[in-house]
């Protein structure tokens, strides 16, 4: 999957999203952040996903 950003259009896999039509600012920001990742999303599926994955939020013991 690739994500590229140009003229408000972000390509996510086979889908082209016009981000200005996304009403939720939070969702828009999240998708734009995905699109601005280094290397686009040719790297997203594996590398970025692995980098973003996190351990359990409840690892905090004390």
């Amino acid at each position: 999957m690739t994500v590229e950003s140009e003229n408000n259009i972000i390509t996510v896999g086979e889908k082209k999203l016009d981000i200005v039509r996304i009403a939720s600012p939070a969702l828009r920001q999240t998708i734009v952040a995905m699109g601005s990742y280094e290397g686009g999303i040719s790297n997203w599926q594996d590398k970025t996903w692995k980098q973003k994955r996190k351990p359990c939020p409840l690892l905090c013991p004390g």
Partner: protein
Amino acid sequence: MTVIIETVSHCNLSCRYCYLGQEKHTMKIPIGLVERVLSEVLRYNDKECPTEFIWHGGEPLLAGLDFFQEICKIQAGAFREYKIENSLQTNGVLLDGEWARFFLNNNFHVGVSLDGPRDIHNGNRVFPTGRGSFDIILDNVLSARRNGLNLGALCVITKASLGRQADIYAFFKDLSLGFDFGAVTTTAPMAITPDEFAEFTIRLFDLWFTDPNPTVTIDPFTMLVTAMLSSRPVPQCIFEGNCVESYIAVVPDGTVFPCDRFAAYPEFALGNLWRDDLETIMNSPVRARLLSRARIPFFECSTCTIRKFCNGGCPHEALVYNGGFFTPGYFCSSYRQFFLYAIERIQRQIDAATVGSSLRACQVLET
């Protein structure tokens, strides 16, 4: 691979929900064992793939700054050709400017445990005297940021958090402090039910999703968006299905567990790094049994439309609450309620923004 290291077994707080309970031995992982962990793990792991070390506890800062300086020296010396990432989860009590500069200079990802506004936090996270820790931790968080350290927060949801979503959201937003949250998993009186957790999560999601100026990221929500767009599970261990494949935890005596949540269960020990090499540990029958959880679809999940996002949840939660890990996790129904609610709303907006196509029915849940 991600290695969770129980740096020290003790803590300077006595949080009321702590799963370590009152029995806290004062053990610190010896530098010699850390060297052995680094050597075994880095040799075992793919050299091209970063290995993450999560310095955990107890309270890891009790190990002392000189301990971490030594670790960084070792990593930059004998292991300099490997890709290493360091993360650390602290309660923030000792996080002064010197620590902040050290973490900044050595590229540590630092998470601080902060349960939201003062009254909620101080109801949970107290010193052994019973005094709340909020003021000192907030001061240290602000000071760390003045020193240039970018922090994340970890917020534990208890009975006291219920109905306080707006306060919690406003608190982190005012601080511009991105946060992650999860339900307390003890059975203490402050524990919440799956329905309560679902309700809390949905209301918090609504606050974030409809905020005209969302200046704070909330990890489970942004992670769900990335999961939907990348057709991967939500990138958090409890949703991976095969967390056992990529995580191990090492405690100060060298015992290796699949995760530090299992450290209270000697029957889940995979081996000991003083005695065994990592290959022997990774081939342990206990690990093989846990790995099989990801391959055996539970009856409860067989027709579930969100299975591909959560993969049956956390095996430890399943063990604690259901008596065995070949079942979905305790908060299965919470995740199901939340995912169904949030996915529908996210997908509706993605469909509306898709160029060249009119609104389509939600396809995310169908595949």
